[in-house]
């Protein structure tokens, strides 16, 4: 189904939904999440990008992140992101399988998209981060999420972008 909704603004970045809401599952605002949100951390949104090698993107936006050298804050941050991505994947699959009462949260295109061989990209966007800082972050989130990615199969991956890359290279934000 198609939602009529306000612009999606997360961590000071406004998301562009290129092909309309058919490609969007707004995880954080979904009815299913609202009913279970107590104690459950959630990524922002899920997008279908059929033109990309990894066709489903689960996206979390942040306005900042601690530097790797600032332990233990950095580890806590990585843990939080890992939890959000893992919960987002499960929430999407639960909706896809119509396990929640409000199962009509997914668009028709997403609901009918065959998932058996789809690769997922877990995309973290951090506003204002310089590229050299993104390199270790991508490694750290990738390492932390590895058990989940392996369990889920089909070579899913973690990507960490800054707002400039999200805007210019991937048209994710305006």
């Amino acid at each position, binding site marked *: 189904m198609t939602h009529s909704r306000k612009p999606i603004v997360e961590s000071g970045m406004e998301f562009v939904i290129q092909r309309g809401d058919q490609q969007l599952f707004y995880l954080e605002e979904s009815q299913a999440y609202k009913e279970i949100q107590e104690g459950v951390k959630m990524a922002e949104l899920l997008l279908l990008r059929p033109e*990309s090698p990894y066709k489903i993107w689960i996206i979390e936006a942040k306005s900042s992140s601690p530097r790797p050298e600032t332990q233990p804050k950095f580890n806590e941050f990585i843990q939080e992101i890992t939890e959000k991505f893992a919960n987002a994947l499960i929430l999407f699959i639960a909706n896809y399988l119509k396990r929640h009462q409000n199962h009509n949260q997914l668009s028709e295109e997403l609901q009918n998209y065959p998932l058996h061989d789809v690769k997922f990209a877990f995309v973290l966007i951090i506003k204002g981060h310089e590229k*050299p800082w993104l390199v270790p972050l991508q490694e750290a989130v990738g390492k932390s999420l590895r058990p989940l990615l392996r369990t889920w199969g089909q070579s899913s991956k973690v990507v960490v972008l800054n707002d400039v890359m999200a805007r210019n290279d991937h048209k994710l934000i305006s």
Partner: protein
Amino acid sequence: MIDSFDIKNVGPIESLKSGPLGKINLIIGTNGAGKTFLLKILYASIKTIEEYKRGNEPRSASDILVDKLYWTFEIDKIGSLVKKGADEALQFEFKFNGQDFLYSFGKDTIKNIQQLENHISPRKSNSIFLPPKEVLSLHKVILKSRERDKEFGFDNTYLDLVKALMQSKQRGKNYDAFAKSRHSLDNLLDGKIEYDEKLESWQFRKGNQKFPISLTSEGIKKISILDTLLGNRYLDTESVIFIDEPEAALHPAAISKFLDIIAMLAESGIQFFLASHSYFVIKKLALIAQEKENLSIPVIAADNDNWKVANLKDGLPDNSIIDESIRLYEEEVRLILG
């Protein structure tokens, strides 16, 4: 310590002024930029100062320098060290503990340096060069080739190191300043190297067991070499250590520990010049520079023919090694998101 240097037409380097140097100095750049060349000419120059007037040494500084350059670079005439195509002479100048040492020669010079000024007082300390290849399992070959046959093949950086390692342990207590560093080295090693006079070879001792040095890893040999030079008192707190590719044969975790030890030794007085290609070395040294307020780490970086001097206290410098790690990251992002 070497306070600063200023060189012109040296090998592949047209011109390079270091500015104020630190206890740890990092030299980075692409292959062929002249990193090893720079380390070697600094090494040959400081060895000249160290040999001049030592004991009964009768030679002039100029004669010693010619010998050092000849055997360090293994060239038929020292004029070959002048930058190819340069109209002007090679010029070398450094300040050591506030005093100057400078020389100059042209491309036709065979073995006579006319212009040399040495204002540095004779010194007792020794400096050393640790080349990327290990010397322990080759020490007999190196000694034969250089001492008996007088052949090119192993330059002075190898010969000096072999001889320094053979120096028997001096009497007296080890320098307190080195105790902590040696303890950390021992933790990395889990054993000791020792020279077996009967077998005429280096052995690695772990507990009661002895192994031929050829059976130990390259990394163990590298760390053992530094440990031995600190233990036999060849090095003291005034020494200068040149390390070409400290990362060679070491796992990134061992690189980090090795550099922590280097930082400790630098704090006790030793000056280091490290030439590296490694992202891990640069990153780790940048963290050390941030952690230790009193340790400034100048980074002398070559990109193509262009040399720049920065300081790791200000973060990672713009350089092709850093750029490559970002390029790999970008390539991965492109493969995933398209």
